């Protein structure tokens, strides 16, 4: 079937790349199906679950309802971009230590929301963590281990 294909220029995890995608693609489709960055998940298709959360210019953004063109000329960070070659992000390590990822499907999105929270608020209270993650549904954990992991990561970053 014919649809318009467009070439868009994206800045993802520090790389600048051009990708040809159908013009109606959202950012999550461009990431997953255009660039092969499958770390970002899709749990619904309409902005309801938060699984597709990525950082756009440092802000948590639902990539499933962002037309890909709107991500052009902005800095996109996905879960693949949180770690450095030397070390994983403290949040990733604490999620691992505290069992905060069960099935792990919500995890990439939650990590992006949590990373943005810690960047703006190094010592969040549990209520602030609850607020910051309220757009990310997790069906497995009951959220408890996620709160604990975010608190531990915050403490560790402050300690540095």
């Amino acid at each position, binding site marked *: *079937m014919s649809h318009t294909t467009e070439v868009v220029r994206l800045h993802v995890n520090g790389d600048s790349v051009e990708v040809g995608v159908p013009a109606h693609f959202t950012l999550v489709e461009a990431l*997953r199906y255009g660039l092969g960055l499958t770390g970002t998940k899709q749990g619904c298709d309409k902005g309801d*679950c938060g699984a597709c959360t990525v950082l756009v210019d440092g802000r948590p953004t639902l990539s499933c309802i962002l037309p890909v063109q709107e991500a052009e000329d902005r800095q996109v960070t996905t879960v693949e971009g949180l770690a450095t070659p030397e070390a994983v992000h403290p949040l990733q390590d604490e*999620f691992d230590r505290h069992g905060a990822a*069960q*099935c792990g499907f919500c995890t990439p999105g939650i990590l992006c929301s949590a990373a943005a929270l810690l960047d703006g608020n190094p010592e969040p209270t549990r209520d602030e963590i609850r607020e910051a993650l*309220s757009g990310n549904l997790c069906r497995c954990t009951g959220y*408890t281990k996620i709160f604990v992991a975010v608190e531990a990561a915050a403490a560790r970053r402050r300690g540095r």
Partner: protein
Amino acid sequence: MSGKRPSRDDFAVIGRPQRKIDGLAKSTGRAAYTDDIVLPGMLHGKILRSPHPHARIRSIDTAGAEALPGVHAVVTGADFPTPYGIIPWTPDETALAVDRVRYIGDGVAAVAAVDEDTALEALRRIEVDYEILPAVFDPHDALAAEGNYEAGDYIHPPKREGWNGNITKKVHLEFGDLDAGWKAGEIEVEAEYYFEGTTHAAIEPHCAIGRFDGDGRLTVWSSTQVPHYLHRELARVLGLHPAEVRVIQPPVGGAFGGKSEPFDLEFCVAALSRKAGRPVKILYTREEVFYAHRGRHPFHMWYRTAMTRDGMLTGVDARIVLDGGAYASFGLVTTYYSGQLLTAPYALPAYRFDSVRAYTNKPACGPKRGHGSVQPRFAFEVQLDKLAELGDIDPIELRRRNFIGANTRTVNELRVTSNGFLECLEAVEGASGWKERWRRLPFGRGLGVAGSTYISGTNYPIYPNDMPQSGIQVQIDRSGRVAVFSGGSEIGQGTDSAMAYIAAEEFGVPLEHVRVYRGDTDFTPVDLGAYSSRVTFMLGNACIDACRKLKRRIQEAVAEHWEGEPEAVVLREGRAFDPSDPERSLPIRHAFQIAETRWGTLGETGSYNTPKDVHGQYRGGTIGASPAYSFTAHIAEVEVDPETGIVTVDRIWVAHDCGRALNPVLVEGQMEGSAYMGFAEALMEEHVFKDADHGRAGLHNAPSLLDYRLPTSVDTPELESLIIESVDPEGPYGAKEAGEGPLHPSIPAIANAIHDAVGVRVDRLPFSPPRVWRALEKAREAGALAKPAHPADRLSSRTEVGA
């Protein structure tokens, strides 16, 4: 270690907090789920779904779709008409509808095309000629229907002579002397309850990829939680030899029972791939996930319960109507479970239940976490609270008095082994400050308690056979590496990690040196799947079996080397050593090398099968039987706003007897996730359908993650996990289940807490603000809106009156 109960210190790995072996892969985005897999030449599939709740298919014209450029294959029900069903006695589904659709959303045709847009356009070009049939949405109406299948009065042909075709299953079982029970009873409660349907809503939508190779072999990747059953049904429906079918299960993004039987997409990707000669992927939209459903059955329940003045239960009678939706799914088992799983943790001297499952023209219901027993548990634990109130007994005390005990049989003859229920009650009683706070908190705030039990795996497989329920293969080599080939299903609960902990414990190697390969029917032994909380118990035992056989050979080889006894060789924390002789100590890798030198290449298999004498000797007596039962008690603390009816759950204390926590972090995670899911059903979730007055009858009311209200991080209460370890004699290191039991008491504990807070009963789920508000209004009008009195106060005021 034999003879005495092993303590945590006897283990190097088991019982201690450990990381999961796939935790970092999941938190860095490396873990590849089914939809993350792209195969060369892969096509996109889509399924056309019925817009009618009940209709005959007169004809399907697919020519328009086939002619569309970019379309590679189209299939309809006629391509694979072999009926199937997860329960072999009720095969009432086909991969796509053959001559009749039975709910809005029933699959009718499927296409494979170069991309999603083309596939969607192809669906629009398929013409289906339907003859509309009468539809039924209420189970009572369905059971009252008269007529015949051909005319559409029934959804299925009658399963038995004389039955209405809207009946899936009827169960009537009676144990003990109920007449005597009523006679002995001095206090009785009789009430009706309604449990609304709910769905799993795993965050990963169902996804499958099919690939037919030129040599006629089929590979299906699927987000299933039951690769073995999928394997069997694929072979059957596609007419293949099972040895030509391979099922691969990538990590699954949550399941909760919602992926525990084959779905149309798995058959469709296989059939489309066969036709197209290319791999085909289908990913459900979130809306399709809601229609695929197989979630919690709505239950209409009636209970009569009697006890003596001292609070000893004397009789329980139940009548239950299950709203099954359009197909049987696991419904035969659900109908049994609705009664069979109620007989612990309390001793019931006499018990009867009468359950019937009706078909309705809605998406089929099936197993959701706590299959078939969450609904009756809600009703029964509220019954107990009402009895306690009438008998002026503390509800925890009432539960204690009726405790069934360990190493016993239930009234329906199920064998119970370890039982830590009393410890669970004690733990939540202490942690919540129950003694000081229950009935003493200000109006609007309350505490409620509830208990429950659940199976650690169903004792009998879904299709009758005496082969092992679980299999594992273990292989070690001179590098010091241990490879575990596991038949298990990793759906987030940590099965792969649990197997790694067991192997690390048995061989004394660091966890990092254990690899677990799982989820591929071509190279892993059969395990029946992640359902009925069976995996830790059954696969864990299989893993211990394989490891110990192999370990024995290492011990023998090393003993030979030392000229000692194999029993003296200990493998622990990276070394093989003889505790009685400090000279005798080797790095574990050398021990493996000695063994490989002595025996050649090293590998073993292990299996687990269930004990065969743990069930009742009556028809249906095997259903509900399990090698072990877990026990749980919760206390919930709630706040009820008397003006609005809004209920807030502040905290739930969750005490769970899991036998032994192989990794306490993972057990807590299961307890918290379960308690959360129960809380969600209590307050928020409703899987409901429109009626003709509110849109199109049979249309899902809210097939999105916004409108079907899942609790967010802000809604979820604080959850406090209290692990109780009764150390089961047959569990792996004493372990039992933890993944489903701790869901049950959330709901009745919240119901009972609402009563403690404001004195009203809401016997219908969910406890939504309008429903609670109406109950409050009724009490207000009757001038009875008040906190219930503490039994001690009531008793003392009675004494004064009497004096």
